[in-house]
């Protein structure tokens, strides 16, 4: 989240798209309804009429996978009707920047495409630079090569009529949403976007978010109270695990992970440290050297020296994509020998779950850590496995402690790291994940020290000293290392500005620097006093990265004199009389302490402004473009290219007209997956609880009354849903909450399946992910869980 949960209450318009907070983030609805009580309008755009839609002022249905078309239509609407925030767009975005004249977009393809490698050369997407290396600008926004004009041309095709034909909604519904949300561009008004996996789990996932970010920037909604682009994270601490590099392409604190080309630390810094010649750009990532050297110093302690590049070459270097699908594809080819699954259950949660379950059989060993038995830990007992005896994988199950049975921090979607104490002892032999990791690391160190082996240095030299506490591991020592300290004195640093690139400081995650200082554990603070601006910042409650800044990019909320554009819900303000006339910021922690006007507001970008046009960094284009999902019932009506031309595929999609039609005859119905309030993720934590099973006892599929009528299926009867990956049986839940889409002149049906069920636990059911496919987003590789084609027939065993 750019903003945070409490801040939702400050919004004037709340757009919920690709999220169902009433079901999946029930407590968040407190803030949404508080906003509504204060007069905010709540809009839900979703394939289904959800519990969230039911509590909204406006609902518009949307075909899964058509989000770019929808948001593209909104972008055109605010540009055409000039409801965008002109001052903000000039001041805080790259709208005036001039792009290379070689840039082009033709028939669905951006300039620089190589069909052979299915990738883009992004050189033509770059800025025109002046002789000092600063991007050229046209403040009138009229130059045909300026970002604003390119944006305007690009989205001119996304008219309300086109949108309604692609999205499958009524034109009036779309326009009602557009009118309501465009209101948030007015001075003193703010609109927020709340999204979740409904936007991300597509081959266009990243561009879906980009689309909403562009809209928010046009309306001046980023950096302000009640605004922002807000990801409602799917698990209580998934924000924390992302911050700590659970993903393959980053190190802690979003430092880039090294690639094979980075032969030395200098090579790495050359590639990964952005540069800016613009004195008005803070270019915060220019501090990358201090952050990576302090991280290496935390990893390897005194063994990390200037002479050995602080152990840089002990870091693994990647050659390719190691996202979820890629790992399982490699596993199914026998290239992965062992795997840890800690709090993860791919046999239920992974796409094409039968294929992934099969891949597990290729492992020599597998370790699962969970609260209960999982389908993954028991994959060899899967009812579909004919000869369990043939599976040679050795499986270990570690009994994990639940969140209330251990001490530590949880970082919520709003970036607040909240310290939790242990409430109860874990049962039996259960231990915290940290306990298991500590024992494992120490044993590995001991064995490598004793026996040597290939490339032992990274493990042997590992600085690993977290002992103490009642069970031999002190989580506070981990938290202090994360905060960072001066190597000589062991004194905790007060924040990341104290980190050095010369090996004198160590820091486990620069973003969390300041969370555990000499003043104590800041994450454990529970001061319920609000800040002077009374917008729900509560700066003394827990601790928030970065630097306890509660609303990111807040410099964009003030003018060049430091005056807020929204006087009622101001975030920061420059008090020129403070500090004996030298002036100071009041309110939230600003994005850097410079006086107003000195630096551009978006300090993490080398341009210093937010990017309506992404001149670099994305695999599939500088602007979002609508492509159909890899499995779609229709031809792309917006451009001539059917699918995202750089989507991650492990098999070629059916592009031929004839094959495509044949495929759609066989699988004519759109399918999507979703979550329920009553169950949690892959289900181990809830399908073993009787009171929750009572509410949601069985796997089902939502079917519209019209489709049910044609299939001759009544509510509560059994149906079989099939895709090329497999088929499953479930109860039919016939409901008007799901309806077909009208795509120009034909109606297309959709069914929706909760993905919580599996074959282990007190309530069981067939996993929805048996039906989903191994296709991924062009940038992140996230699977396209949210839309695929299926067929439904009456029947089943019951």
């Amino acid at each position, binding site marked *: 989240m750019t903003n945070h949960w409490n801040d939702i209450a400050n919004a004037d318009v709340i757009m919920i798209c690709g999220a169902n907070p009433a*079901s999946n983030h*029930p407590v968040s609805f407190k803030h949404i309804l508080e906003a509504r009580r204060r007069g905010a309008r709540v809009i839900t755009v979703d394939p289904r009429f959800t519990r*969230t839609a039911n509590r909204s002022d406006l609902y518009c249905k949307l075909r899964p996978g058509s989000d770019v078309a929808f948001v593209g239509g909104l972008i055109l609407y605010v540009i055409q009707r000039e409801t965008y925030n002109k001052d903000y767009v000039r001041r805080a975005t790259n709208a005036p920047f001039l792009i290379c004249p070689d840039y082009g977009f033709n028939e669905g393809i951006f300039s620089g495409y190589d069909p052979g490698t299915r990738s883009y050369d992004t050189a033509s997407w770059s800025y025109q630079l002046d002789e000092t290396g600063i991007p050229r600008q046209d403040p009138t926004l009229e130059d045909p090569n300026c970002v604003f004009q390119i944006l305007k041309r690009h989205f001119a095709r996304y008219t309300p009529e086109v949108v309604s034909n692609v999205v499958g909604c009524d034109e009036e519904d779309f326009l009602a949403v557009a009118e309501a949300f465009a209101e948030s561009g007015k001075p003193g008004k703010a609109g927020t976007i709340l999204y979740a996996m409904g936007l991300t789990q597509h081959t266009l996932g990243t561009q879906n978010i980009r689309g909403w970010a562009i809209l928010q920037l046009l309306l001046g909604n980023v950096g302000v109270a009640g605004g922002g682009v807000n990801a409602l994270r799917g698990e209580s601490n998934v924000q924390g695990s992302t911050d700590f590099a659970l993903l393959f392409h980053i190190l802690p604190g979003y430092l880039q992970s090294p690639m094979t080309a980075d032969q030395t630390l200098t090579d790495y810094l050359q590639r990964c440290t952005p540069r800016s010649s613009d004195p008005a750009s803070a270019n915060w990532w220019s501090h990358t050297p201090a952050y990576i050297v302090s991280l290496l110093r935390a990893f390897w302690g005194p063994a990390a020296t200037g002479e050995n590049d602080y152990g840089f070459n002990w870091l693994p270097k990647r050659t390719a994509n190691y996202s979820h699908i890629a790992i399982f594809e490699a596993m199914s080819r026998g290239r992965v020998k062992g795997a840890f699954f800690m709090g993860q259950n791919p046999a239920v949660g992974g796409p094409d779950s039968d294929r992934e379950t099969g891949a597990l059989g290729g492992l020599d060993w597998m370790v699962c850590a969970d609260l209960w038995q999982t389908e993954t830990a028991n994959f060899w007992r899967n009812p579909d496995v004919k000869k369990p005896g043939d599976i040679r994988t050795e499986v270990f199950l570690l009994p994990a402690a639940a969140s209330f049975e251990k001490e530590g921090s949880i970082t919520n979607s709003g970036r607040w790291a909240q310290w939790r104490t242990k409430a109860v002892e874990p049962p039996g032999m259960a231990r915290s994940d940290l306990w298991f990791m500590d024992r494992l690391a120490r044993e590995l160190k001991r064995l490598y020290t004793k026996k040597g082996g290939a490339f032992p240095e990274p493990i042997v030299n590992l600085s690993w000293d977290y002992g103490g506490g009642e069970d031999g591991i002190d989580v506070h020592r981990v938290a202090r290392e994360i905060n960072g300290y001066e190597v000589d004195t062991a004194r905790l640093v007060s924040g990341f500005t104290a980190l050095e690139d010369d090996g004198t400081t160590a820091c486990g995650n620069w973003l969390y620097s300041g969370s555990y200082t000499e003043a104590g554990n800041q994450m454990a603070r529970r001061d319920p006093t609000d800040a002077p601006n009374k917008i729900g910042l509560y700066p003394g409650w827990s601790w928030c990265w970065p630097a306890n800044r509660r609303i990111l990019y807040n410099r964009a909320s003030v003018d060049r004199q430091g005056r807020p554009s929204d006087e009622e819900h101001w975030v920061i303000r420059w008090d020129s009389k403070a500090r004996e006339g030298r002036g100071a910021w009041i309110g939230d922690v600003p994005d850097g302490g410079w006086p107003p006007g000195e630096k551009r507001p978006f300090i993490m970008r080398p341009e210093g402004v937010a990017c309506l046009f992404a001149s670099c960094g994305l695999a599939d284009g500088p602007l979002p473009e609508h492509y159909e999902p890899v499995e779609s019932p229709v031809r792309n009506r917006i451009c001539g290219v059917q699918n995202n031309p750089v989507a991650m595929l492990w098999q070629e999609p059916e592009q031929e007209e004839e094959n495509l039609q044949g495929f759609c005859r066989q699988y004519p119905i759109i399918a999507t997956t979703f979550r329920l309030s009553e169950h949690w993720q892959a289900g181990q934590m809830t399908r073993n609880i009787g009171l929750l099973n009572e509410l949601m*006892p069985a796997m089902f599929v939502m079917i519209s009354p019209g489709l049910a009528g044609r299939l001759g299926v009544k509510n509560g009867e059994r149906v079989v849903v099939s895709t090329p990956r497999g088929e499953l049986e479930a109860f039919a839940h016939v409901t008007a*909450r799901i309806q077909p889409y009208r795509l120009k002149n034909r109606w297309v049906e959709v069914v929706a399946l909760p993905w919580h069920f599996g074959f282990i636990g007190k309530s069981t059911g067939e996993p929805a992910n048996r039906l989903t496919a191994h296709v991924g987003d062009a940038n992140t590789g996230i699977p396209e869980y949210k839309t695929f084609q299926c067929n439904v027939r009456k029947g089943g065993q019951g």
Partner: protein
Amino acid sequence: MLRRPAILCDPTLCTACRACQVACKQWNNLSAEETEWFQGESYTNPARVSAETWLLVDMREEIMAWGELVWMFTQRRCHHCIDPACLKNCPAEPRAINRDAHGIVTIDPGLCIACGTCVDVCPFEVPTVSERYQVARKCTMCVDRQSKGDLPACVKTCPTGAISFGEREHLIEIGRGRAGEFEKGHLYGVTEGGGSAILHVLPYGVEFSGFPEKPGGRVHRGVPTRSRKSSMAGIDGAGPLLIGLAAAGLTRFAERKRRVRESGTDPDPK
């Protein structure tokens, strides 16, 4: 404790997360019912309030006259009536159902004879005789929590303020304001059946709530004179109704209630 504690249920703030339904069962140690599938309409589960389900979020999908789909979430639970039919008709000696000085209606399991009279007369179909415990059971408004200064479990757990707790007069004021925001809005429980401690904001009026317009307690005929508990030990000349019921088993109460509802008449009026 409050002088006249009341609970305001406002479905316009409810997201049907059903945390109240689970919290009620957790606090009161009620067991999970075996449900193979959604036993009620939409996601409603189980189908009705029972001896093991004292609070149920009833979910119904209605296509309104103007074409809009509305997903209605209504709380089914004891209304804690000011003039309770269950209490008036309780035949046990001494009476097993009481209304305390604060207006909370409870069943004393030590005095309850499990005769099922309250089951029959309650206009909201709330009290149910427990097969397991051999007593009629229902919501206690968490009087045990209230007496220690805590909120009732459902109120405490509600994340959105759809269930609020306070003095009845105060909640009537709030509830009337909320109901007044809707054309057909109505605050149920102020006067219906003489009023109740549980108040429901009904945004679309009584018509879509499933509540009776005039919840007068049904007249109960053939009131048994002996405890069913003693009759289970040895049938000793109790009235014909009692014998019939004992022979049929306690589940018969539920079946009978269903028939009453479906036919509109009491099929077993002896």
